[in-house]
């Protein structure tokens, strides 16, 4: 335990560190903590730069990140809950551990003018980002709880159309779909660019109005071998979260800079502003929401390879809790799904 916010080194030395650490992320507003940490060099702060080199790798989608993890080409990555679960399930729990939360909330059901009540959904077409992902599952279970039948191939009282977010905007503009359950920044873009209106914010459906959007995973082998390095990254991550929550304007600016750096083009200002309002940035793993969405997915027949053990062992929050304890903060729980 240290007194100043800047940690001293002694504890780190005890844990093994790697020569290089490869950190994955998406250049996307939901990965803001990764982007801000890069811009402000928070990871570098805790990693002895002579000993450990950082490689940042930007992914476009979850599967490639998981494949890179499987191929040993990636050590730690920011990623959504669904690829985390499928990566865990498809390797019977051997591939990865969730080591911290990062982002929560920021998904909304947006609809076109004229849909004012639940009853208006009958016969409508609603898009989701991807078959079996968090929003897709949430949409289906919400519809079910309101008495609408849906099916995986779409046919039902309400047609659920999983399609890529970028296409959702075009389809909505064309009038091919009547609404969509979308994460940020897409919910904001539909509202701002296509005059959609918010029918429902997903967080209202969750206990404490919080659900998981992005977390950090580490390769199990890397975590076992180099806990020191992982711990340093987590410290950087916590600094980044801290910075984001205290300096909204600067953080947004950092995010825009990084997005521009990696993809050549920033988000529109009104889009990032509106998205930001809907997102929460915290290390809380929100393990309960993870297991609930896994259960929902299994119920919907969308997660077939989850073994009898379920998600147990997916979390390893020991390092995070160590740091929290060092910072005299309340430790977090894995809700029975792994080390704390």
């Amino acid at each position: 335990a240290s007194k100043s916010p800047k940690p001293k080194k002694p504890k780190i030395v005890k844990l093994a560190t790697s020569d290089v650490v490869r950190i994955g992320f998406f250049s996307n507003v939901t990965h803001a903590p990764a982007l801000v940490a890069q811009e402000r060099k928070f990871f570098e702060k805790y990693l002895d730069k002579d000993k450990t080199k950082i490689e940042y790798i930007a992914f476009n989608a979850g599967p490639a990140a998981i494949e890179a993890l499987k191929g040993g080409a990636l050590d730690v990555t920011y990623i959504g809950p669904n690829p985390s679960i499928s990566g865990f399930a498809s390797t019977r729990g051997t591939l990865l551990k969730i080591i911290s939360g990062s982002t929560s909330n920021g998904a909304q059901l947006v609809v076109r003018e004229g849909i004012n009540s639940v009853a208006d959904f009958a016969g409508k077409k609603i898009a989701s980002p991807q078959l079996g992902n968090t929003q897709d599952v949430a949409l289906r279970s919400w519809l079910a709880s309101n008495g609408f039948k849906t099916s995986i191939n779409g046919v039902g009282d309400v047609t659920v159309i999983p399609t890529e977010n970028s296409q959702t905007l075009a389809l909505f503009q064309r009038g091919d779909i009547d609404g969509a359950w979308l994460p940020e920044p897409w919910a904001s873009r539909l509202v701002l660019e296509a005059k959609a209106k918010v029918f429902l914010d997903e967080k209202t459906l969750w206990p404490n109005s919080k659900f998981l959007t992005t977390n950090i995973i580490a390769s199990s082998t890397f975590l076992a071998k180099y806990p020191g390095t992982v711990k340093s990254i987590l410290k950087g991550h916590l600094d980044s979260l801290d910075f984001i929550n205290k300096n909204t304007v600067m953080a947004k600016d950092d995010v825009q800079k990084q997005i521009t750096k990696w993809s050549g083009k920033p988000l529109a200002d009104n889009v990032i502003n509106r998205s930001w309002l809907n997102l929460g940035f915290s290390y809380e793993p929100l393990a309960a929401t993870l297991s609930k969405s896994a259960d929902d997915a299994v119920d919907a027949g969308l997660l077939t390879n989850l073994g009898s053990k379920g998600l147990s062992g997916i979390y390893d929050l020991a390092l995070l809790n160590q740091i929290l304890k060092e910072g005299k903060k309340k430790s977090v729980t894995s809700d029975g799904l792994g080390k704390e």
Partner: protein
Amino acid sequence: MDNSNIDLSKFSAGLDALESGTSRKRNKFASLLNFVAPVLAVILVILIWQIAVYLKFKPDYILPTPSQVWASLQNQWNQGLLWHSATNSLRRGVQGFLIAIVIATPIGLALGLNKMARAIFRPILTGLQQLPSVAWVPASIIWFGLSNATIYAVVLLGAVPSIANGLISGIDQIPRIYLKVGKVLGAKRLVSIRHIVLPAAWPGYLSGLEQGWAFAWRSLMAAELIAVSPALGPGLGQMLDTGRQLGDMSLVLAAIFVIMLVGVLIERVFFAPIRNRTLRNRGLG
């Protein structure tokens, strides 16, 4: 060949490509070979695969066993997805390909026969051929929305330039004597195209068609990812993507297997007989 007694009943095996292929016996053997050999190839692949699995070369979530892949296939089958996806994809692929032929052939003919048209439009055609299918997806969705038209648009934009370019190079390779004969016989434009240019360019065109089919089929796999919707129905591309999303290598391999299978089937059932007949008829078999 000095002092050697040439055994006439056998033909020196080394120069297969040279055979005139007139012997029926040889043909029968060849057609049997043509059907048995691919099976052999598959068995070979599975054998190597199984050995690699036995050697525990990679964990099974990276290199699943044949039986795991088989189980994935069965699972898809039981859900009714496999048959539905395969037939859906096949239908779309074949329809898209046929439409592509209908569109590409006049384009290829026009550019093949007219130097001016070729100079102006061939770069555009070649440019279009260079574009990945995914480039067409946004535009197609905007134009055609969530309908099969979107999928066909992507397939067509993939296959048409390739087929047209194949026909153009087929026309380029026509020995000049046939065009001269056509002119001397007094063939007018259309008759000449129908009876001289197309048949003379046919071998080259046919190989353009095969490449075009591959383009069509691959573009289709990309197009099928656009959305899961009742209007579109499932497809093999979707199945492959699901496997990827779930990180389920045995499903990925199962999808790859079916995609290859359908592709090879098309080649065997459609292209191979036409190709063999063409070559045989022209004394090239």
